[in-house]
């Protein structure tokens, strides 16, 4: 009897804070009380709408919004309620909204704005993370990754070590934290254990993109010949 696994968990290797997939999350705080309307988009296409009440009297400090369930109500892993209830959320304005993707191909971004007609109402767009946001990337595939902030053009490198079968069951350590400032990505070389999350605390407008540049197939395994993002040195280059 085979277990049913979401292929995207192991096949989607890169991450993009502006196109969320299963292993990426964005945390945002609304800060101001009020009624909000959000749109889930894939590329430029709106996929679903949802509503958030930022209520000062609410004790809820964290609300998880599963973009996969909103975009495809029948497929989400947290399908439990009627559609009308599934797209309404309540959170304290000082609390946090966590956008995540429970399954499927993903690639979602989110627009959130106050549900009022004023033309100058600010729009929050996950494709441009704001100060105070947190983007979390969980990297499973061992190897070396490039990480870049597309808005500040800063870069860094992440290495994910190969999993080891030890004497005890492995549990990924606590998330590693880096800050994204106007000056770049703090600690631009990060070493992670397999499955360890990396929290990007956003201090300047950011869009974080992570790409695999050198896979690690473990001890004794042949290296993947298709190394992306690097050019093989040749005599003509020198």
């Amino acid at each position, binding site marked *: 009897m*085979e277990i049913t*696994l979401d292929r995207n968990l192991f096949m989607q290797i890169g991450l993009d804070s502006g196109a969320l997939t299963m292993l990426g999350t964005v945390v945002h705080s609304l800060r101001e009380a009020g009624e909000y309307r959000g749109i889930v988009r894939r590329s430029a296409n709106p996929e679903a709408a949802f509503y958030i009440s930022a209520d000062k009297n609410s004790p809820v400090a964290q609300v998880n919004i599963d973009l996969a369930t909103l975009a495809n109500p029948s497929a989400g892993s947290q399908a439990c309620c009627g559609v009308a209830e599934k797209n309404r959320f309540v959170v304290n304005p000082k609390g946090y909204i966590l956008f995540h993707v429970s399954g499927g191909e993903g690639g979602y971004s989110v627009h959130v704005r106050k549900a009022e007609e004023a033309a100058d109402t600010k729009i929050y767009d996950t494709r441009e993370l704001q100060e105070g946001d947190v983007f979390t990337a969980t990297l499973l*595939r061992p190897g070396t990754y490039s990480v870049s902030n597309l808005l500040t053009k800063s870069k860094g490198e992440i290495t994910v070590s190969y999993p080891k079968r030890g004497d005890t*069951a492995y549990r990924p350590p606590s*998330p590693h934290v880096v800050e994204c400032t106007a000056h770049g990505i703090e600690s631009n070389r990060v070493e992670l254990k397999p499955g360890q*999350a990396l929290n990007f605390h956003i201090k300047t407008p950011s869009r974080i993109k992570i790409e695999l540049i050198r896979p690690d197939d473990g001890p004794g395994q042949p290296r993947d010949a298709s190394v992306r993002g690097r050019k093989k040195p040749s005599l003509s280059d020198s």
Partner: protein
Amino acid sequence: MSHITIAASANAFEQLFKALRDRFHFSKHDSGDFGPFSASYEIELHLEGGSIQLNNDNTVEVTDVDVVFTKLKLTVCLEIPQFCIGGGCVIPDPWNGCLVSLPRICIPPVIGGKHCVDLDLKGLVSEISDIKAKLVPHYFVDPARLPGWSDLDAEFNGHPNKWRIFVDPVWVHVDPVDIPATVGNLFENLVKKAIDDMIPSWVPNWAKDWLWSLIGPVADLIKRIIGIVGEIHEWIADLLNNKFHIFDPLGLIETAVADYFASRNPIYELEDPYPILESSGGLIPVKIPIRDLAAEVNSKEMIVSANAGT
């Protein structure tokens, strides 16, 4: 003094007993569900070997009879737990641990169903270390005999009454099944293969290695699911030897052996009335009724005595 005395030497008695022993076969199966795991067993066995001793205290003692399992299949089904990642803290709360935490991603997504492994333990041997028995005669009225039949009718129809002599055990002791440590290793390997088979073939090798790192050593996983602290082969032995009061195959074997010898299969039987002369030349057979049959043993022989007449 008895009218009839039949004696069988210790050697002849041993041959009678061996023939009886060789006809013994036993099979049984049982199962049980214990939450995160379930187990079932199937056994088929026969008896071999052993030594027999006739005692002057009118008892028969049989020792060291091998219980040979021609089938001993133990099936253990385990509910493989979920292994989850995520759940780490995104925004710590200085007073209350964590203000915002990541959602968890679990593999498999849903707990459900048990994964079974079959342990073929055929060939293992236990032992009936001791049977202490007395000879007990029983009068047997053939249930197929019709009420209107005379003794001659019953004989001609193959349903005569009989005196039967049973070896009636006072006790039977079957030693616990000894499970070698290699069975624990075999069980581990089977569970490992069952988990390997659960992982879809499209999963890349690095991801399989990652999943196995989460699962950890298989022996630890098995112990965690079943809830044991000792060695796996010891748990299997305890399961089969009724330490947990779940299955009691040994008790069933002891009962079956006792029942087999005490009431189902006589070591010796005599027709009643007993034929003195066979029928021949148009004459009916000559038979004498037997009463007051008794059977006893001493260290040299079995003696069956009876009186003739009604």
